């Protein structure tokens, strides 16, 4: 009995992700068989597409970069107890500000990069702060306001690059800024690969955040605020201040994600290039899957990015559409949200026992 309990306690936290991934892949298998492809072959192609060779692997990490940084930002807000659904707008505003800063701030490359980073983080942070301020001051529900602000932000950024700051050099009038000069680009980690320094920044941030929550009083106060705001304010935590700071940093990180995408991958702001791949939403999924744990978010961000790059490989080499990745991702989120644990298992068993008893 005791040994069994110990094993249960050890396995319990692992059970849920395990079941979730298993059922997620099972759902994927169903979707694959619907489009009439062989299941195992398809999953092998998916793996190859994500980690098949060094190039694919670095591409996966490159894709994981914005997802990870956004995920960290969202997890900070979640930890503080608020649902920041505005990562997309924050990211886009950050990216467009960064692109404009890198274009128009005079000076050498490093100055441009730094001012782009500052602009991207600050603008996105302030945008996020707006929602936080509306929540603390006027009780405007952050969950909804952040979501609605996404549309405003994305449309505004789109306006900026289709009217005043549009690149008019090319023949086609695309909604994008001019190209940044090469000195302002974030260096690549490996020549010829898409992976850039943004990934290193993301990983460092994840580690820093992990230690902030584990070791510092600030992390403690944020966590307590998230668990029970009454308890936190009773204990002297300044609820408004911590919430606003969390929202600023949360949005700032989303802005940073947009910034490194602009400086490291696209070298300009292109309307729709950040919203199309759904970085922000995948980042939020990564956080949900990892239960807001910073290091866990790093792992799930890479996992989700791998699903996406793998699915792209799938589309290149087979008839299976890449959208299969989104199906698997969303099933994972649903499963992880439910309290599928030994408690659930016990309840099922108890239900049976009860029926047996009567």
């Amino acid at each position, binding site marked *: 009995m005791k040994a069994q309990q110990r094993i249960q306690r050890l396995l319990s936290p692992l059970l849920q992700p395990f079941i979730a991934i298993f059922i997620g892949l099972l759902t994927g298998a169903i979707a694959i068989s619907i489009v009439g492809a062989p299941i195992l072959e398809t999953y092998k192609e998916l793996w190859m597409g994500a980690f098949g060779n060094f190039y694919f692997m670095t591409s996966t990490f490159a894709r994981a970069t914005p997802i990870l940084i956004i995920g960290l930002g969202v997890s900070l807000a979640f930890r503080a107890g608020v649902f920041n659904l505005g990562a997309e707008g924050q990211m886009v505003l950050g990216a467009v500000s960064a692109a404009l800063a890198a274009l128009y701030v005079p000076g050498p490359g490093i100055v441009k990069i730094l001012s782009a980073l500052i602009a991207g983080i600050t603008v996105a942070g302030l945008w996020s702060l707006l929602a936080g301020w509306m929540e603390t001051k006027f009780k405007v529900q952050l969950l909804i306001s952040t979501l609605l602000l996404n549309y405003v932000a994305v449309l505004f950024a789109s306006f900026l690059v289709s009217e005043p700051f549009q690149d008019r050099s090319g023949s086609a009038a695309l909604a994008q800024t001019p190209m940044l000069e090469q000195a302002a680009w974030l260096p690549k980690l490996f020549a010829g690969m898409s992976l850039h320094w943004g990934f290193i920044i993301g990983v460092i941030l994840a580690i820093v955040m992990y230690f902030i929550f584990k*070791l510092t*009083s600030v992390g403690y106060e944020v*966590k307590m605020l998230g668990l*029970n705001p*009454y*308890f936190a304010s*009773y*204990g*002297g935590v300044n609820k408004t201040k911590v919430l606003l700071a969390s929202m600023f940093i949360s949005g700032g990180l989303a802005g940073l994600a947009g910034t490194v995408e602009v400086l490291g991958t696209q070298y300009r702001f292109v309307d729709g290039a950040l919203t199309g791949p759904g970085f922000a939403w995948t980042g939020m999924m990564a956080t949900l899957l990892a239960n807001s744990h910073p290091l866990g978010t790093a792992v799930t961000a890479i996992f989700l990015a791998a699903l996406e790059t793998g699915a792209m490989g799938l589309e290149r080499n087979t008839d299976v559409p890449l959208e299969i990745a989104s199906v698997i991702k969303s099933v994972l989120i649903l499963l992880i949200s439910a309290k599928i644990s030994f408690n659930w298992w016990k309840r099922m068993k108890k239900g049976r026992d009860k029926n047996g008893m*009567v």
Partner: protein
Amino acid sequence: MSIRLEMRKMTKQYGDFLANEDISFTLNAGEVHAIVGENGAGKTTLMRMLYGMEPPTSGQIYLDGEPVSFDGPNDAISHGIGMVHQHFMLFSDFTAAENVVIGHEPKKAGFFRRKDAIDTVNKLAGQYQIQVRPNVKVADASVGEQQRIEILKVLYQGANIIILDEPTAVLTPIEVKGLLKNIKNLAEQGKSVILITHKLREVMEVADRVTVLRNGKVTGSVNKEETTADELAKLMVGRELQTISDRIQLNGNSLLEVNELTIKEKQEKPLLDRISLSVRRGEIVGIAGVSGNGQSELLQAISGLRKVNGGKVLIDGKDVTNQSVADIRLAGLSHIPEDRYLWGAAKQATVEETGLMGYQNKPDYNNKSILLKKQFRSLLSSWIKKFEIKTTSINEQAGNLSGGNLQKLIVSRELGQETPLLLAAEPTRGVDIGAMEYIHEALLQKRNNGDGILLISSELTEILTLSDRILVIYEGKIVGELTREEATEEKISILMAGGSKQ
């Protein structure tokens, strides 16, 4: 008189803990049978078994001589057993009539006949002489009326046996009188009433028989005529109460000064109406009152959790009015909150995290924002040892601790602050006697060390045991002040109900 209900050798075991052991109990038709005992004596468990909320480990219930077993409250209700819970089970936006009939609504083709409901309630109210306005919204009804609505609901459901769980805890003395009259009335009309309480005076007034529980066992079952309140008290406690430390007479200087404190919400009458009070060093000042008369607001105003509209709060001569919680704590306040789950802890936080609250920025436990966990853990284990807090480890979730142990953790955390002033709100609500004695002793120790305590409690006995001075709060005002010597339960009760001192 015929036996309507019998419970034979009821036992309930949770793990290693025997909550009820071999309890036997009978109830006649038209009888009021009181079950008395301290917190944790097993009264609630017994009633939960009777009401079908818990299956007994062993034992058998008989109704009118027939063995029965209930699978849930519904089953109990359909067998004519009704319960008025201590926390009312009412819908605040519905009217009294709607609350009475819910679950068995008068209807026609699926449509709710509200008129019939009102008629039925009027009829029922007349029959049992229980005054209820059928169209009043529960949110607008007084606590006493809400309780009467609950009783009507139980009657409407066809109950012959009515369980009243601590019915007088939330009532003013006048409302208590009304309730006791209602109970007698019900019994005269043939209903059987089980009265669960720990207030012996009410028992002596209304009960026909009394069963006393202690530590899950019956320590006595007597007719009222053959016993006295003192005898019942002995059966209830079973041993000499630990004598608490002597009071050292201290004439300390003033520590807490509250002047004309006022809290107002829009257009309503003030929640706190120009409250003035003071607490000296070496003094426990008790605030008595029926809960909901401004105690929560007063606590929150003093501790900085709520902004005030007027007046001043001074701690040790320093004006802390409308300062932040952190600053007020720094000025010398610690605070045992009135609701340990809402304010005092986070259920999903660990024991360590729960204990750390308020210490996270102290230089002893914080070096440039890095928490000094080692130092804090030794403090925490000293609390656990001293207060005998039962927890599997400091990584246990606070929500998994028993109420008493969590309360001990919170009390030790706040005492550990070693501040000159302590706000203690309902410090022993819902804890067992052992924990209660511990906490009372600790509070008195703090007083004897020359610190000041403002005690807020809805338990009169607690106020009377601990306080040097007693203030009575009623509708946001201090309506009376009594010294320890002149205070009696009688005098306080009158003031609590809004009466004058004389």
